[in-house]
C-alpha cells in the first residue's frame, strides 16, 4: 500500500512541477552495430548456466567431494576470460562502439490494431555490449571467480551437506547477473533482476534450519519484489511512450523525440513520460538497498560470508547503479529526477553511516557501510557524474569484498565470533597476520585515506557535487564530507577493536546450538563456525587461522583494492584519460562522464571551497575530504585504541542525559526503521488478512451464499402450515386462491381496458 501511495505522491509532485520548465534535451547516443559474429559472447551466460546444471546433477548423484566448487570456479574463470576477450575485441583503440548480439527470440509477438498497421512487442534475447557493460562484467566475473575459489575452502565442512546447493546458487547468481548486465532490453534486465533476487533468497537462506536465516531470505526477496514492481511499471510506461523496450531502439526514439522536442508523442500524456525515471529509481533503490528499501541488506548477513562478499557487497547491490547509468538519457529528460536520486543517495549514506558507527557485529558494520557507499554512488549519479559513480563502484567492489572476506576469515577461525567487544588484538594471534593486514588495507580504502582507491573515487563524486555550483548539490557535498568522516571513524573503529589491543577471543556460544553437550560429532549449527576440534567448554578453545586458499585470495583482492586506484594514478601522473572515464564516455551514460579532470569549468576561483585557497575544485575537495577522514581516524584511535573505557563512558553519559538519550538508542536500533515497517505495514496487513478471512468464511460465504441458498427453505416453511391435512382447509385455500387470481385478473383487465 505504501509503495503505491509513495509512487502516487512522486508522480503528482512531478506533474505539478515538470510542466513549468522547458524539456531538457537528452544527449544523443550512437546506434549500436548488430554484430552476429560476436555470438560467442553468449558463452558468458552459458558457462554459469552449465555450472548450475552440473551442480544439480552432482546434487542428484549425492557427490561428497569438492567437485561442485571446482566446476563453478572453472566456469566463472572461463566467463571472466571470455569477458576479457570480448573487451579486447570491442575496445579497439580509444573508443568502444556499442554492439547488439541477437541470440534468439524470447517474448516477441505482433498484432494489427484497429487502424490496420502492425504494432509489436519485441523482447528478443539479445546482448547489448557497450563499454559500461564490459566494465561491469569485468569486475562481476573477476570478483566472482576469486570469491568462488575462496568459498571452496571456506565451505569445506558442508561438503556432503549443502556444498552443492551453495555452488548451484552461486552459478545461478552469476547467470542472472550476466543476463541483467548483458541484456539487450529492459525485459531481460527484469529477468536478471528477479534472478539475482532468487539467488540471494536461496543463498541467504542457505542454513535453512535457522529460522532467522529463513526470515531474512524471505525479507530480502519481498523487499526486492517491491522494487521490481516499480521497475515493471517503469517498463510498461517506457513501452507505452516510446513503443519499444530495447535499449538501442529506445535511445534512437529518445533522440527523435528530443530533436523534435516540440511534438511530444501525441497520445502519451505528459505525466506518464515524467513518471518513468521515478519508477525506475524505485526499482534501483529496491535492489541497491537505498533509504526506503534498505532494511533487507543487514539481515542478509545471515548468509555465509562469501555470499555477503560477492552478492551483498560487490555485484548485486550495484545493479541499481547500473540501471540508472544505462537509462541515463531518460533521467536527463526530467529535470527533477537526478536531484531526487542525489538527495536519497546522500540521505541513505548519512543514515547508514550513523547506524554503522553504533553496531557491534562487524559484518553488520560492513553491511551498513555498503549501504552508505552505495549512497555515495547514487549521489554521484545524481550530481551528474556517472564517471564518479562508476569509478566508486569499481573501487568499492574490491575493498568491500576484501573487508567481508576478512570478516569471514575471522569468523571462520574464531568459532563464529563476530562481536567486536569479544575480539581484540588479532594482529598478534598466530595465523591471523595476513587477515589483519588485509583488513587494514580494506579500512584504509574504505575511509578514503589519501592516495587510496576509495580516496580517488569518493573525491571525484564530492568534487562533482561541489563543481556544479547548484546550492542543493553543494549542501549535499558537505553532507557527503561529514559522512566520509563518519565512515573513516567506523572503519578504523573495527580495525582498532579487532586487531589492536591485548589478545582476547572467545567462541560464539550461541553459534554452538548443540542441544546436548555429549554430541560427539560436534553438531555445530551454523556450518561456517566449523569448530573442528570439538565444541567443548569455551576455556580450551584455540582458534585456527585460515589456510592457503583464503589467505591467497585475501592477498590478491588486497592488491586489487590498491591497484583499483591505478586509473587515477595514470590520469594524475601519466596524463592519460582515466580508464573508467573512457569506458563511461563510450556508453549510454556519456552525459555524466564529464570531460577530463582539468576542464576549464573547474578553474573559476570563487567555488564553494574557495576558503581553502586552492583554485582547482577537485584538489580542494580531496584536501578537505582527506582532512575530515584523518580526523575521523584519530577519534577512532582515541576511543578504541588507547582508552577503550572512554568509549563506554561516553555512551553511558549520552544515555543518562535525557536530551541526548535518543541518539545512541536510535543508532543502535537502526533508527527503528524495521519496527516502523512492522507497525505500519505488516501488522495492518496481518489484521486485515484475518478480518478478510473471517468475512470470506462467514459474511460472504455464510451470509451471502448460504443465505441466498436458504431463502427457498424459509419460503417453504412459510407455506408449510397450509398443508395441514384438513380437507376443508384445502378447499377453502383453493377457493381463496381462485378468488385472488380472478381479482388480480380483473385488476389487470381494468388497467388494460
Amino acid at each position, binding site marked *: 500500500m505504501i509503495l503505491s501511495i509513495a509512487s502516487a505522491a512522486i508522480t503528482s509532485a512531478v506533474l505539478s512541477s515538470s510542466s513549468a520548465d522547458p524539456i531538457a534535451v537528452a544527449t544523443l547516443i550512437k546506434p549500436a552495430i548488430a554484430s552476429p559474429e560476436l555470438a560467442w559472447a553468449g558463452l558468458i551466460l552459458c558457462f554459469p548456466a552449465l555450472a548450475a546444471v552440473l551442480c544439480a546433477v552432482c546434487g542428484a548423484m549425492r557427490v561428497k567431494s569438492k567437485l561442485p566448487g571446482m566446476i563453478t570456479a572453472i566456469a566463472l574463470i572461463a566467463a571472466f576470460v571470455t569477458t576479457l576477450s570480448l573487451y579486447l575485441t570491442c575496445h579497439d583503440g580509444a573508443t568502444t562502439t556499442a554492439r547488439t548480439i541477437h541470440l534468439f527470440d524470447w517474448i516477441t509477438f505482433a498484432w494489427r490494431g484497429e487502424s490496420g498497421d502492425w504494432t509489436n512487442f519485441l523482447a528478443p534475447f539479445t546482448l547489448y555490449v557497450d563499454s559500461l557493460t564490459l566494465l561491469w562484467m569485468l569486475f562481476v566475473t573477476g570478483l566472482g571467480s576469486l570469491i568462488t575459489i575462496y568459498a571452496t575452502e571456506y565451505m569445506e565442512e558442508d561438503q556432503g551437506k549443502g556444498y552443492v546447493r551453495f555452488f548451484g546458487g552461486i552459478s545461478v547468481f552469476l547467470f542472472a547477473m550476466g543476463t541483467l548486465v548483458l541484456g539487450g532490453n529492459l525485459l531481460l534486465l527484469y529477468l536478471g533482476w528477479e534472478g539475482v533476487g*532468487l539467488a540471494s533468497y536461496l543463498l541467504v537462506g542457505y542454513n535453512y534450519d535457522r529460522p532467522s536465516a529463513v526470515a531474512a531470505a524471505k525479507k530480502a526477496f519481498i523487499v526486492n519484489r517491491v522494487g521490481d514492481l516499480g521497475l515493471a511499471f517503469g517498463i510498461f510506461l517506457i513501452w507505452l511512450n516510446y513503443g519499444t523496450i530495447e535499449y538501442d531502439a529506445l535511445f534512437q526514439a529518445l533522440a527523435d523525440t528530443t530533436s523534435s522536442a516540440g511534438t511530444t508523442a501525441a497520445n502519451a500524456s505528459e505525466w506518464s513520460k515524467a513518471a518513468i525515471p521515478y519508477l525506475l529509481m524505485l526499482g534501483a533503490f529496491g535492489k541497491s538497498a537505498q533509504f526506503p528499501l534498505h532494511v533487507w541488506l543487514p539481515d542478509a548477513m545471515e548468509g555465509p560470508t562469501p555470499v555477503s562478499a560477492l552478492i551483498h557487497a560487490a555485484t548485486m547491490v550495484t545493479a541499481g547503479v547500473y540501471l540508472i547509468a544505462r537509462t541515463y538519457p531518460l533521467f536527463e529528460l526530467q529535470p527533477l529526477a537526478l536531484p531526487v536520486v542525489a538527495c536519497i543517495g546522500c540521505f541513505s549514506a548519512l543514515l547508514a553511516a550513523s547506524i554503522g558507527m553504533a553496531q557491534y557485529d562487524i559484518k553488520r558494520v560492513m553491511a551498513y557501510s555498503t549501504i552508505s557507499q552505495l549512497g555515495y554512488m547514487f549521489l554521484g549519479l545524481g550530481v551528474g557524474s556517472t564517471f564518479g559513480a562508476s569509478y566508486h563502484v569499481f573501487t568499492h567492489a574490491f575493498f568491500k569484498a576484501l573487508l567481508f572476506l576478512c570478516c569471514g576469515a575471522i569468523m571462520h577461525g574464531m568459532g563464529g565470533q563476530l562481536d567486536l567487544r569479544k575480539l581484540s588484538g588479532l594482529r598478534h594471534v598466530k595465523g591471523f597476520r595476513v587477515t589483519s593486514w588485509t583488513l587494514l588495507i580494506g579500512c584504509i580504502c574504505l575511509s578514503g585515506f589519501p592516495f587510496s582507491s576509495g580516496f580517488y573515487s569518493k573525491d571525484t563524486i564530492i568534487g562533482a557535487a561541489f563543481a556544479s555550483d547548484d546550492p542543493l548539490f553543494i549542501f549535499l557535498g558537505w553532507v557527503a564530507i561529514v559522512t566520509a568522516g563518519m565512515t573513516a571513524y567506523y572503519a578504523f573503529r573495527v580495525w582498532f577493536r579487532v586487531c589492536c589491543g591485548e589478545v582476547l577471543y572467545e567462541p560464539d556460544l550461541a553459534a554452538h546450538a548443540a542441544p546436548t553437550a555429549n554430541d560427539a560429532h560436534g553438531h555445530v549449527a551454523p556450518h561456517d563456525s566449523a569448530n573442528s576440534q570439538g565444541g567443548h567448554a569455551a576455556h580450551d578453545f584455540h582458534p585456527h587461522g585460515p589456510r592457503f586458499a583464503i589467505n591467497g585470495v585475501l592477498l590478491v583482492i588486497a592488491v586489487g583494492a590498491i591497484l583499483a586506484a591505478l586509473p587515477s594514478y595514470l590520469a594524475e601522473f601519466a596524463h592519460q584519460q582515466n580508464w573508467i572515464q573512457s569506458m563511461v564516455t563510450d556508453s549510454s551514460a556519456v552525459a555524466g562522464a564529464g570531460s577530463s579532470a582539468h576542464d576549464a569549468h573547474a578553474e573559476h576561483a570563487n567555488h564553494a571551497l574557495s576558503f581553502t585557497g586552492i583554485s582547482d575544485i577537485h584538489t580542494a575537495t580531496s584536501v578537505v575530504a582527506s582532512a575530515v577522514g584523518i580526523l575521523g581516524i584519530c577519534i577512532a584511535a582515541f576511543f578504541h585504541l588507547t582508552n577503550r573505557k572512554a568509549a563506554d563512558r561516553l555512551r553511558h553519559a549520552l544515555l543518562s542525559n535525557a536530551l541526548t538519550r535518543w541518539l545512541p538508542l536510535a543508532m543502535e536500533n537502526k533508527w527503528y526503521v524495521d519496527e516502523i515497517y512492522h507497525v505500519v505495514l505488516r501488522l495492518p496487513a496481518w489484521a486485515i488478512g484475518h478480518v478478510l478471512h473471517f468475512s470470506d468464511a462467514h459474511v460472504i460465504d455464510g451470509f451471502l451464499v448460504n443465505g441466498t441458498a436458504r431463502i427457498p427453505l424459509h419460503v417453504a416453511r412459510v407455506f408449510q402450515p397450509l398443508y395441514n391435512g384438513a380437507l376443508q382447509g384445502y378447499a377453502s385455500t383453493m377457493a381463496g386462491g381462485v378468488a385472488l387470481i380472478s381479482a388480480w385478473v380483473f385488476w389487470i383487465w381494468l388497467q388494460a381496458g
Partner: protein
Amino acid sequence: MLPTLSYLLLLIPMIATVAILCAPSSLAKWIATIGSLATFFVAIGFAWMFPAWTDGTFAPTDATIPLLPSLGISLSFGTDSVGLLLVLMTAFLMPLCMIGSFTAVTERTKEYFAWFMALEAAMLTVFIAKDAIVFYTGYEFTLIPMYFLIAIYGGDNKRVASIKFFLYTFFGSILTLSGVIYIAAQYKIANGMWSFDLSTLTDFCSTKMSAPQQYWVFILLMAGFAVKVASFFPVHTWLPLVHDQAPTAGSVILAASLLKLGSWGVYRIALPAAPIGGVELDQIFAILCIVGILNAALICWVQNDAKKLIAYSSVSHLGFCMLGMFSLNAIGVTGSIMYMINHGLSTGALFLCIGMIYERYHTKDMDQLGGLFRRMPIWSFFMVFFTLASLGLPGLNGFIGEFLCLMGCFTAEPQSVAGYPGVLGPWYAIVAGLGLVLCAMYLLMMLGKLVWGPLREPASAAHHGGDHGHSGANPGATTHSSGGSAAQHASVTESSAQSHSALPADLNAREIGILVPLAVFCLAVGFYPKPMLDVIAPSVERLLAPYPSLVAEYVAKGTLMPRDDDGGGMASITPVQGQSTLHANSEPPLATVTTVRESVGQ
C-alpha cells in the same frame, strides 16, 4: 482425417470409462492411464494436423453430425489455436493425475478412475465444441463426475462441499443457458430457423442485437462463467471449500482445467457475442477482479492449511488472468491465455506436491508440518521450483502470463498507442500490482513453513523420534548422508514411514516421473514462449476485431446505451425486426456501431 481425430478425442475417454467399469478393479488404474495417454497422443496428432494454427479461424469445419435439426442442434466440433492449447494442456495433465493417484485411493478405485475418464471426456468436449449445446453439454456434465469424486473420495465434510459445488456452479450455468437460448431465439425470429452453431450465434448477436439486449445477454452469460472461474470477488468462496475437500487428483484437475472452462467460455462466447455489454461492464468486472486478487492474497497470508492457501492463491492468480482478458487489448488477452495454460501447470504441480505430503503425513496443516527439506530433499526441490513458477519468477512460465496481463491492463488507456484503446488504466494495474508483492509474501511464507526451518512432523509420524532424544537439529544432514548416527537415524525414520503408508520418506520413482515433465514444461515455456505467443496472437486479433471502435465510442460518449432508453428491460424487449439476410460469417463482422445504432433506432 481431422474430424475423425476430433471424434476420437472424445470417444477414447468414454470407451475407457466403460472399460474400467467392466474390468476388475485391480486393472482400473492401468486402463485409466493407458486411456488418458492414448487421448494425449490423439490430441498431439490433432495438433499436428491442425490447419488453422496461424490464421485464427476454426477447424475442422466439417465435423458435424445432425442431432436435433428442428432445434438446430448438431454434434459439431471445431476449435481455434487457443482451444487446442487448452486441449493439449488438459490431455497432458490427465495421465499425470492418473499415475499420481495410484496409491491415493484404496477402496472404490473402479468408480474413481471411471469418473475421471468421464470428466476428461466432458472437459475436452467443451474445448473443441463448435455447437453451443455441445459446449453446454460438456460444461454442465463436468459437474456430475466432480460431484461424485468429491462426495466419495473427499475430506471430512465432503458431502457439504460436493453439494455446494454442484448447486453453486449449476445455478450460474443455468443462467448462462438462458442467455444462450435468448440469442438463439432472437436468431430464429430474425431468420426463421433455429441454429445453435457458436460462430453463427456470436456473429448474429454482436452485429444484429441492440445495445440493451447485448448488455443483458453479457450479464447472463457472465453469471455462469464468473462463478466457474471463481476469480471475481463475491463468487469465489466455493473454490477453497471444494479444494479443501477434493482428493488430490481432483483438485489438480479442478485447478488446472475446470476453472479454465469458465475463462474459455468468456473467451469463446461472452466477449465475441456481446461486445457492447463487454465494453459497458468492463470496468465493473475489472474492479471485481482486482478486489478478488487483493482479498484472496491477504487471506492466503493468514492461512495455515497448505491446500486452502494454494486454492486461494489460484483465486488470486486467476484474478490476474481475467484482468488481462478484460483489458481488451492484444497484450492483455494474449497474456491471459498464456496465464490460463501456465497456471494450470504450476498450480496443478503444487497440488500434486501437497498431495504427496498428505499421503505421507495425512495432514495439510502448516503448523504441524515444517522443515521438510531435511526429510524430503527431492520433494523440496520440486516444491521450491513450482512455488517460484507460480510466483511469477522470470525464466519460468508464470512470469510471462503475469507480466503481459499486468502490462495489458496498464496500457489499456483511452488513447493507447498499441492500436487498442481501453477503459482500464495504470491505476488499475498499480493496485493489481500489489497482488504481485502479496503473492511473493504468502508463497514464501508457505515455503518458509513447509520446506525451510527446523524439522517438525505431526505427532503420528514422528512418535519414534521422541525416544531417540534428537528431534533432528541435524544441520543440512539429508536423509542419505553417510554420517554414522545420521544413517542410523535415517533408517529409523524410513522404517516408521513404511509402517503407516507404502511410500518411502522421499519421493519414489513414480512421483518424480510425474513432476519432471511438468518442471521441464514450465522451464521450456518460461525460456522459449515464442511458438505459443505466435499461435495465440491471430486468434486474439479475431476476437478483438469489434472492440476498438466500440471502446472509442464508449470513451467518447460515456455509454453505448441508447440515450432515449426505449428498449429497457429484457421482458419487454421487442424482438429485432427480421433483417433480410445474415452476413455470411466468413466476412469479418461489420463496424458494429452503425448497424447497432440502426436497429436500436427502429
